[in-house]
């Protein structure tokens, strides 16, 4: 019930291509879905987040698509750049109390120049 499943584990994309990372969840009480980006030697940092009342959120080249009925959400990176090479984590939480995040397994994204 608490799991968030993320795929793929690793992804290689050519510069200028579209990177797509998928996540699925079970707990229908989750109401906040962030994506975190982590560069080597750094802690994760919030990239973009969505609530289930919208099906899509776009910030620059980064878009979250959300499918409430399928309990799935995905991150799309348009015009992928070598600087986007990082590990990406999806997460989910109920926005209450201490806001415990449940994280996916992570995706190591490599953008080839």
């Amino acid at each position: 019930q608490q799991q968030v499943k993320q795929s793929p584990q690793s992804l290689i994309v050519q510069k200028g291509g579209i990177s797509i990372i998928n996540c699925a969840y079970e707990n229908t009480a989750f109401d906040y879905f962030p994506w975190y980006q982590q560069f080597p030697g750094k802690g994760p940092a919030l990239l973009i987040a969505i609530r289930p009342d919208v099906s899509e959120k776009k910030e620059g080249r980064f878009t979250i698509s959300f499918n409430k009925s399928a309990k799935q959400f995905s991150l799309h990176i348009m015009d992928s750049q070598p600087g986007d090479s990082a590990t990406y984590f999806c997460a989910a939480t109920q926005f209450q109390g201490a806001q415990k995040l449940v994280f996916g397994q992570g995706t190591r994204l490599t953008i080839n120049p």
Partner: protein
Amino acid sequence: DVKVTQSSRYLVKRTGEKVFLECVQDMDHENMFWYRQDPGLGLRLIYFSYDVKMKEKGDIPEGYSVSREKKERFSLILESASTNQTSMYLCASTGGGEETQYFGPGTRLLVL
């Protein structure tokens, strides 16, 4: 800018040693978290605290304890380190009704 600092970037300890990992945040956040990060497993919550002297177990608390004596400081304690506790440890904080968790840079712990 929120700053979360962790006492060490790298630590090497022996099996059976008591290990202290410290985390300090400067944004007066009420909530603080300790995670461990392992390849293929993502970030798993060890313990969290929503107030001074308050703590709650996360998903993998076995072998760990925590201490929060001051609002800005949250310590993770490995009572008797074991090799299966070799990992990256990340501290995070959030508060003020904000949803974003702010992470420290992590401590890479090797237990020999």
